């Protein structure tokens, strides 16, 4: 199989719009969480979420119409706009333009989402009930379908290669990058634009995830303290929104055009828990086998990994199970490993989490610094692993692992290395 590298990155997150805007605030230990004021929350258990800050992109903020024409923005749910914004950033960053027909046909898009246009579906259901079918927009379906993020990006940039989407709940973003890297490795495409996007925040998602007992409910008066992976007071995740998109290409293609190379995707692992629809298996075997497969595919020893970006959602059950699985994989080398959950800062971006966090892992290598796990005041268990509490840690980082686990017992791990 051909070697695959990352040559462009783009982010829209609750810390900002743009890679540097987000990364600076992440390293500063800031949180994107706040109390929900956009809709009624008084009857909901969880009344906080991590929102993308709105405003001009020149200030590192997000304004939908700077990334998509106003008439298009009206037609789609926001996950598509976030995907367009992050893809645009990544493509510009990569310096790649598909100019010839051949280049267009060998460039594809693979962008997923966990729940896509959930808010649009919910609102249109109400409209249908109250006003009847003649008021349902012709853009209702194409503006909610998950693969339309990839569709819109391909139309904008004239990428005519594989056009695909992943839907694996909270593993989506990682699976998208892993699967897209495979398409490049196997020669189905020279360049792939890949990642995840999500715009879940709304009454219906807060009610639904709340009913699953997955959300934080005890920090409504202290939103920025709500996401606290590994801390003994954690009580669920804080929902976030955004997108993370990368440009992947074959190493030869990147070299031939003199592209800057962030990292090589050297390992990709996948597994299923085959256990429960929402809960991870207590023995962490699914997570362990997923990481083991990624490391094996990378052809390295776990001890070569310097930093792990954990799935670590801040749920009482999940964090310790993942931590134990990582300790099992790393064995004696766990003592020199750094692992953090950046969900402590940005919240849980569901289908976008895996790709956003893969980008954070790449930046950790670029700058030689591990982003912190904020709010980790009192770890619930002792671990030989350095969980990078509160403050980032400077250290040379050459190889990283990024974990994502989703409802349904679906797991994905990516191993990336400096080139």
């Amino acid at each position, binding site marked *: 199989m051909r070697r695959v590298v990352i040559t462009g990155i783009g982010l829209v997150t609750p810390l900002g719009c743009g890679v540097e805007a987000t990364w600076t605030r992440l390293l500063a230990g800031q949180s994107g969480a706040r109390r929900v004021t956009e809709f009624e929350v008084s009857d909901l258990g969880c009344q906080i979420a991590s929102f993308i800050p709105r405003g001009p992109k020149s200030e590192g903020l997000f304004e939908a119409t700077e990334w998509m024409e106003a008439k298009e923005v009206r037609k789609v749910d926001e996950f598509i706009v976030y995907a367009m914004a992050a893809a645009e950033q990544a493509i510009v960053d990569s310096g790649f333009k598909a100019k010839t027909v051949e280049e267009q046909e060998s460039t594809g898009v693979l962008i997923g989402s966990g729940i896509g246009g959930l808010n649009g579906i919910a609102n249109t259901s109400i409209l249908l009930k109250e006003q009847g079918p003649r*008021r349902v927009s012709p853009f209702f379906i194409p503006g909610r379908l998950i693969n339309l993020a990839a569709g819109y990006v391909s139309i904008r940039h004239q990428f005519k290669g594989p056009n695909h989407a992943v839907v694996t709940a909270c593993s989506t973003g990682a699976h998208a990058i892993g699967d897209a890297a495979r398409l490049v490795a196997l020669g189905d495409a020279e360049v792939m634009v890949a990642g995840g996007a999500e715009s879940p925040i709304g009454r219906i998602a807060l009610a639904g995830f709340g009913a699953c007992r997955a959300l934080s409910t005890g920090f409504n008066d202290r939103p920025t303290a709500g996401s606290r992976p590994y801390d003994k007071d954690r009580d669920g995740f804080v929902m976030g929104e955004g997108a993370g998109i990368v440009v992947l290409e074959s190493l030869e293609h990147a070299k031939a055009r003199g592209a800057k190379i962030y990292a090589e995707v050297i390992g990709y692992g996948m597994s299923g828990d085959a256990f429960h629809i929402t809960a991870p298996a207590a023995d962490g075997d699914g997570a362990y086998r997923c990481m083991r497969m990624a490391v094996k595919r990378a052809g390295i020893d776990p001890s070569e990994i310097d930093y792990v970006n954990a799935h670590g959602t801040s749920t009482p059950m999940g964090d310790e199970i993942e931590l134990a699985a990582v300790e099992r994989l790393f064995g004696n080398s766990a003592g020199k490993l750094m692992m953090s959950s950046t969900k402590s800062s940005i919240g849980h971006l569901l289908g976008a989490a895996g790709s956003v966090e893969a980008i954070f892992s790449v930046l950790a290598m670029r700058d030689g610094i591990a982003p912190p796990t904020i709010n980790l005041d009192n770890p619930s268990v002792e671990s030989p692993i350095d969980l990078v509490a509160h403050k980032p840690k400077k250290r040379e980082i050459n190889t990283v692992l990024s974990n994502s686990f989703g409802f349904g017992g679906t797991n994905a791990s990516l191993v990336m290395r400096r080139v």
Partner: protein
Amino acid sequence: MSDIADRVKKIVVTHLGVEAEKVTENASFIDDLGADSLDTVELVMAFEEEFKCEIPDDAAEHILTVGNAIDFLEKNAGSSAGKPAA
């Protein structure tokens, strides 16, 4: 220009994202204003909502230009071509 013509043109500008000068009575939604078939469906819905009427599908098929829309709505606004809007 009639009040109805004004309101029609405003809707066209908003929905198709085109400059007001281009929205002449002879302008075709698809050929001159860049609409696709879905846009035209949505435009008709917007007219229905603005003018509180129902535009049946067979009538909508003949609304191809800004002028067609104005003519139809001048005759049918409020009263509706068929049933009142739900």
